[in-house]
């Protein structure tokens, strides 16, 4: 039930209530003004005001500054300024009621910016109640980050202990297990073989690595140059200047194509990994949005 309380606190903070307009509750008044700035999209004012709240420890309590940092992080997150959102989430103190969501959102934003190590640190530092939804959420996020960091051993060890009861987390976690299997078994095409194939037939190496379109384009670039060079040699021999010009161009494109084909093996592999990483990142956000948004 802890997360419900957390959610309630957040909603209370966000919407405010009637008395919040009175001086008797200055805390809600300041936060409400922050949300007013966000609603009016006055982001320069929002940052200026938030900084003035956070830097004034004499006038404003720790609770208020934590709430302000979290609210500002939320607003910048809403406007897709993840750099600023992250910096404000990170200013929420560990003692705050917002420490868990702030750490979680900061971790997610780090992961989305491919700062996986930092994201894992944030997620590991989240308080763990031992059971329940927040416990499952933390371990689910960590599982995804292990996959993103290619730490398959850590994912395996987590898999033994982690059996989510929540249906949504369970469904997303099943996808993670599939990605774990694919990432471990997926084989990279041989760069050497791709280069050798392109040496025999220009573009064939790229067809082998899974890029038939690029293969055809390479073929249409290299082969005509080869034919032009051969024709100029046949008609003028070594005395023909055009033979040297087109011969040089042909050599350049022929060698470049071999080199490109051997590299494309790595590029195609990386594209497949990136696609899986993207799916993992989307999966990481789904349960978080359901619990906290």
């Amino acid at each position, binding site marked *: 039930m802890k997360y419900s309380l957390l959610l309630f606190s957040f909603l209370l903070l966000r919407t405010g209530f009637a008395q919040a*307009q*009175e*001086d008797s509750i200055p805390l809600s008044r300041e936060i*409400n*003004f922050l949300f*007013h*700035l966000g609603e*009016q*999209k*006055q982001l*320069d*004012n929002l940052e*200026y*005001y938030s900084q003035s709240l956070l830097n004034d420890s004499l006038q404003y309590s720790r609770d208020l500054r934590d709430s302000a940092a979290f609210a500002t992080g939320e607003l910048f997150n809403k406007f897709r300024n993840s750099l600023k959102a992250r910096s404000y989430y990170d200013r929420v103190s560990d003692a705050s009621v917002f420490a868990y969501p702030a750490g979680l959102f900061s971790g997610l934003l780090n992961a989305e910016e491919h700062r996986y190590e930092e994201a894992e640190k944030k997620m590991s530092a989240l308080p763990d109640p031992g059971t329940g939804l927040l416990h499952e959420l933390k371990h689910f996020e960590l599982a995804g980050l292990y996959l993103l960091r290619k730490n398959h051993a850590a994912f395996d060890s987590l898999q033994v202990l982690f059996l989510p009861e929540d249906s949504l987390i369970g469904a997303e976690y099943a996808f993670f297990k599939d990605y774990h299997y694919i990432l471990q078994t997926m084989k990279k095409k041989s760069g050497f073989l791709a280069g050798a194939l392109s040496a025999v037939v220009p573009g064939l190496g790229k067809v082998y690595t899974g890029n038939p379109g690029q293969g055809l384009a390479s073929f249409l670039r290299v082969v*005509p140059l080869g*034919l*032009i060079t051969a*024709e*100029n040699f046949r*008609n*003028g021999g070594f005395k023909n200047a*055009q033979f040297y010009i*087109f011969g040089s161009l042909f050599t350049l494109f022929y060698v470049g194509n071999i080199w490109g084909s051997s590299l494309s093996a790595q590029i195609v592999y990386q594209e497949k990994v990136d696609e899986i990483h993207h799916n993992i990142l989307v999966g990481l956000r789904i349960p978080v949005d359901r619990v906290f948004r």
Partner: protein
Amino acid sequence: MKYITIYLWGFVSLLTASSAELRAQEFFAAADQLYAQGYYAAASLEYERVVFEQPGNETIICLALLRKTECLKKEEKFEQIGSLLSRLDDFSLSDSIRQEIYFQKALGYFMADKFEQAEKNILPVFNLEPYHNETRVSSALLYTFSLHEQGKWMQAHAFLRRWIQTEQQVKLPEQENILQALDSLYDPDALPRLKSIRKAKTLSLIFPGAGQAYNGNFGKGFVNLLLVSGSAGFCAYNILASNYVTAATAGVYLFLYFYFGGANQSNWLVPEKNYKKKKTYNEGLKQYLSHITPVLLRQSPSTHE
């Protein structure tokens, strides 16, 4: 009992309202002080605080946002002015304030180089009663400048003529002179002749280099002509030398590349030339209009100051 409850409710509302108003006044005074001291970011925040403290009080909100507009201008954040003033509910405000809002909004768009939006936003000013002569003259000039930037000189000329003749009402001794000067400034023969991309492209396709020459880029046109004829010569030479594959591939490729490349060059050469022409011409117009502004401001026929 019912009346006592209503009375108490009214009394509490009054107290709450007056306390909110006092708070808003305090923030307003603080904001004005910060603005006077040159702390524009801080002043802008305080004006926004006034808006927050007085929800529903459109007059106070409007005054605060207009002052905030001044802060944004000082900070050169012109692109924010339009959206800031769009928050106001125009119809609940007096004509004089609406006139000021429309002008400031259009000015923000103009300074942010959004001339079409500036033109649209300034138009409502002319449907209102003339309260402030200065704003009215400035609005007319701003509308004219917005038209100039879009190359709508004839529209600007017609507007200025009509505006000086009808809106100003007072027959000035200078009026005839001004109108004559405007006629000669906006003389259709003196207007910059803007080039057409389509025409330049067509000319280049008919004769390589002709499109560039039409646009005034004679050097570029000559280079294009040389490249196209060179590639055609290369193609012909290889046919004569029995290098048919070379002619059909490299020769044709080079010819098509330079032939169509020359035509496509118009896509950026023509707008570049037109921009320079417009800028030079508009600068001359701006100088003359700035020169006659004091004359226009001297007449305040039907202002309700």
